[in-house]
């Protein structure tokens, strides 16, 4: 993949029950950009994120990641480059130990065991969770789970990171740590968040989503001002 960009072109999506979650969503995120995705609950933020790695596919329109149109066939390749951090870390941690969970992605990439171990150690070190290696994920605190969930994606060394509410339910210290990790991530980042401070701090640009539409796209302070004025 030569360019770490994400492009949505007139994307429509309806869930099986008939609810139209996305209506003509179009935007482009270029290499190295950090963009906040803002909106009320149910506005379509998570649905947009799930389209970036092919977990959901548009009913109309196209999603393009790094020059590759996201289809059922290309989704496995796209997922090697797009790391997704889910809102609920319990959904993301499914192996018996932290080490195995963080190794899950690199193992699926077909990497050698030594390289997998190196990436696991590096990812855990970056999130400050080295001492949790042999712990069972379900025994961890909320903040620890969030850190480990982040590590499971960092170990894949993705080119693009998409995050759904990365600081939800975190205390100040854990929130600070997550913010530091995101700030040091040098590639493209799309973050769905209700944390306006995080959006202002890390994302120069924000996209406002409402009822499945992109209603505004621009500098984060302006978008936040617009958002807070209409709610």
């Amino acid at each position, binding site marked *: 993949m030569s360019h770490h960009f994400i492009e949505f072109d007139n994307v429509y999506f309806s869930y099986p029950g008939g609810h139209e979650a996305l209506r003509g969503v179009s935007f482009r995120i270029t290499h190295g950009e950090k963009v906040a995705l803002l909106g009320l609950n149910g506005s379509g933020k998570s649905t947009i994120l799930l389209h970036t790695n092919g977990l959901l596919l548009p009913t109309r329109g196209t999603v393009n990641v790094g020059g590759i149109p996201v289809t059922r066939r290309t989704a496995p390749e796209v*997922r090697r480059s797009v790391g997704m951090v889910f809102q609920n870390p319990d959904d993301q941690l499914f192996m018996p130990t932290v*080490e195995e969970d963080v190794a899950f992605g690199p193992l699926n990439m077909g990497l050698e*065991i030594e390289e997998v171990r190196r990436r696991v150690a590096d990812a855990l070190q970056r999130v400050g969770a080295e001492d949790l290696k042999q712990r069972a994920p*379900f025994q961890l605190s909320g903040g620890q789970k969030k850190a480990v969930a982040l590590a499971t994606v960092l170990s894949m060394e993705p080119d693009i990171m998409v995050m759904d509410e990365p600081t939800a339910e975190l205390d100040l210290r854990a929130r600070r740590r997550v913010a530091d990790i995101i700030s040091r991530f040098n590639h493209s980042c799309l973050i769905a968040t209700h944390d306006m401070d995080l959006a202002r701090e890390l994302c120069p640009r924000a996209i406002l989503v409402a009822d499945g539409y992109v209603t505004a796209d621009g500098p984060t302070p302006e978008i936040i001002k617009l958002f807070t004025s209409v709610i």
Partner: protein
Amino acid sequence: MSLRAMHSGTGHSPISALALLIVTLLYLGLMLSVAPEALARLLWFALYPIVMAPVAGEDYGHIFCRSLVVLPFVLLIGIFNPIYQTEPAFTVSGVIVSRGWVTFVSIVVRTLLSVQALLILVDSVGFVGLCQSLHRIGVPSVLTTQLMMVYRYMTVLLQESLDMTRARQARGYRGGSMSLSMWGSYCGQLFLRTVARSERVHRAMLARGFDGVIPVLKENKTWSGRDTAAVIVIASIFILFRWGPLPALFALG
């Protein structure tokens, strides 16, 4: 046994997971092929779990107690034998013991021994090791992956159940057990929540490249000469138990 230990095993097995699986399959095959009335021969097979449990780092008493969990079910199945098979089998101190009672005891013993052998296997090598070994002996990966997924989602079900129970207790001022109608709603909600949670977990797995086979970080010990020797020796002992000229462990007549 902790969840993690159940997944990874105690690691105390002196032979590889594959060798222990083969030994266990041989044990089950030969033990279950003993004629129902041949109780004296069947009881020789009880030596395997008694000897193997401490070798694999387990306490036999603990294994025995855990195997008793199947007792209600096997009693329910076997209890009809004494009712329908009334022909006399042997006499003990003048008391006639019918064939039905002999086959009933045989069913109970076989079931307990089978469960004990399987507990030793799973405790020693762990569930993941067991699935890996099954794959190595030719069980299709789609089946072994399904087994691992069932195992994984059992914990999801337990977690959801715990969450719902806590919520109910927090709002259950009257205390006591649930009414029948509430049980129906409880089970239905549990099912729906577990399915929804499982779908989210599956999405997270797909997002990290899951392609239908769960990758394993730690491979089982590879087959060695010790495994070959162990399988041959243990298999020979099982064959002796099954067909060899062994003295009866107790006198019947």
